[in-house]
């Protein structure tokens, strides 16, 4: 068995030598997940905000439902969308199955509950005087909203990273909705699943490491924007 360190080196060499197929797979992974998270964030933030600041009937139920959605297996999300998008399904006309768009839809569905639940927890942690001070200092609802988000940015960033981590690494729904078709819908996690299903473990690990390196770079970049990383005490 090729050793772990060896395959790491090989993977990084591949990465930096500009192996086209590898970069294509990476490109598909990030493209799909970026689009998904970009689409999911605004409504998830709105939901989190509504759960935090609005009294409305069914609020608690909604919170429960949302946390429950966290436990929906990716395969079930994938399956449900699959049934909707398949030829026999109600949205079969759109012919979206086995396209990147279908993967984006799956990843939106997967990231939304994480973003909403963790966003809710983060906003709940912000002192209500933040909102009040903003409003009383003349900020309109929109500006006050963005101020509260700024105050909660540490927790919201954690939410973003968790959600992004979940979907960039998620294999069940992507496999089902994208089909893992080379050059079209094969992304890093489905490629890893394929390699390991072939028994090519070191290839799988290598791809995993590629994902890690890229995720780490991204994290480091984001943390620079984040600011308040210092300890509380």
């Amino acid at each position, binding site marked *: 068995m090729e050793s772990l360190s060896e395959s790491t080196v090989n993977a990084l060499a591949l990465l930096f030598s500009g192996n086209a197929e590898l970069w294509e797979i990476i490109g598909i992974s990030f493209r799909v997940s970026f689009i998904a998270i970009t689409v999911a964030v605004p409504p998830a933030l709105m939901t989190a905000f509504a759960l935090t600041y609005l009294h409305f009937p069914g609020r608690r139920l909604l919170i429960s439902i949302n946390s429950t959605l966290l436990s929906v297996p990716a395969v079930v999300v994938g399956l449900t969308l699959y049934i909707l998008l398949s030829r026999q399904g109600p949205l079969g006309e759109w012919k979206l199955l086995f396209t990147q768009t279908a993967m984006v839809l799956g990843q939106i569905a997967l990231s939304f509950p994480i973003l909403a639940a963790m966003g809710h927890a983060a906003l709940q942690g912000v002192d209500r005087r933040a909102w009040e001070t903003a409003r009383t200092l003349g900020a309109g609802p929109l500006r006050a909203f963005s101020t509260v988000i*700024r105050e909660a940015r540490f927790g919201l960033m954690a939410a973003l990273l968790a959600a992004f981590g979940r979907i960039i690494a998620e294999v069940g729904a992507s496999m089902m909705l994208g089909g893992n078709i080379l050059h079209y819908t094969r992304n890093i996690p489905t490629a890893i699943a394929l390699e390991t299903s072939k028994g090519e473990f070191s290839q799988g690990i290598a791809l995993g490491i590629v994902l890690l390196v890229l995720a780490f770079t991204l994290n480091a970049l984001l943390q620079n924007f984040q600011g308040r990383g210092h300890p509380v005490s």
Partner: protein
Amino acid sequence: MKDDILLTVRSVKKRFGRREVLREIELDLKSGHCLQLGGPNGAGKTTLLRILSGLERPDQGLIDCGDGRIAWKRIRRRLLEQTLYLHQQPYMFDGTVRYNLAYALPNRLSANEREERIKQAMDWAGLEPIRNTSAKELSGGERQRVSLARAWLRQPRMLMLDEPTANLDRESRRRTLNLLTSLKETGMSLVLASHDPLHLSTLIDRCLLLHEGRLVETEPFKIMPLSPSHLPSPMRFTA
């Protein structure tokens, strides 16, 4: 401009759970007047100020700030536009002192004007040496000063001050008095809840005492009798 009534409050009620904090609040607030709100701890001063600033919703009653009878949602928006509430324990946004001051500036100003006004506010509040300190780390008095400086920058029509001089040193209290006096002269109305109104006594036009959820008139400097049993029955005031 003086003697305009900015705010009319009629039979406003507010309860928390089973405790009726405000039972029947009647109040008229005139332009350029300063009203002192007394009452023991838990009497409802903060609650009333928050209602008048649009931050808390009354259970019942009428508030009119010049638009007649309108829905609470619209009253709330009007109150938020016209008043500024100075929290009893001010909240500092995560950022420098300068960021906190700039927050209160109206949008329409030019960059130069903004700089100018922030500088004035810092000078007034003695915040220049700590302009780049994180506001979350400030001392109690420094927070209070940032809070007052923000009020000055915002310049609302009505200013609701909740214990503005608590935590302030003697010099800052003097400056606060000067500030509030000059703001009042521009026609701004002030409502002041304070257990230490002595420092601001020259400012106060009328003293009201929150007693069992109602406002009763009282004499300045007698605002906190130990046993309020001899008080007159509640009536309506024009401040």
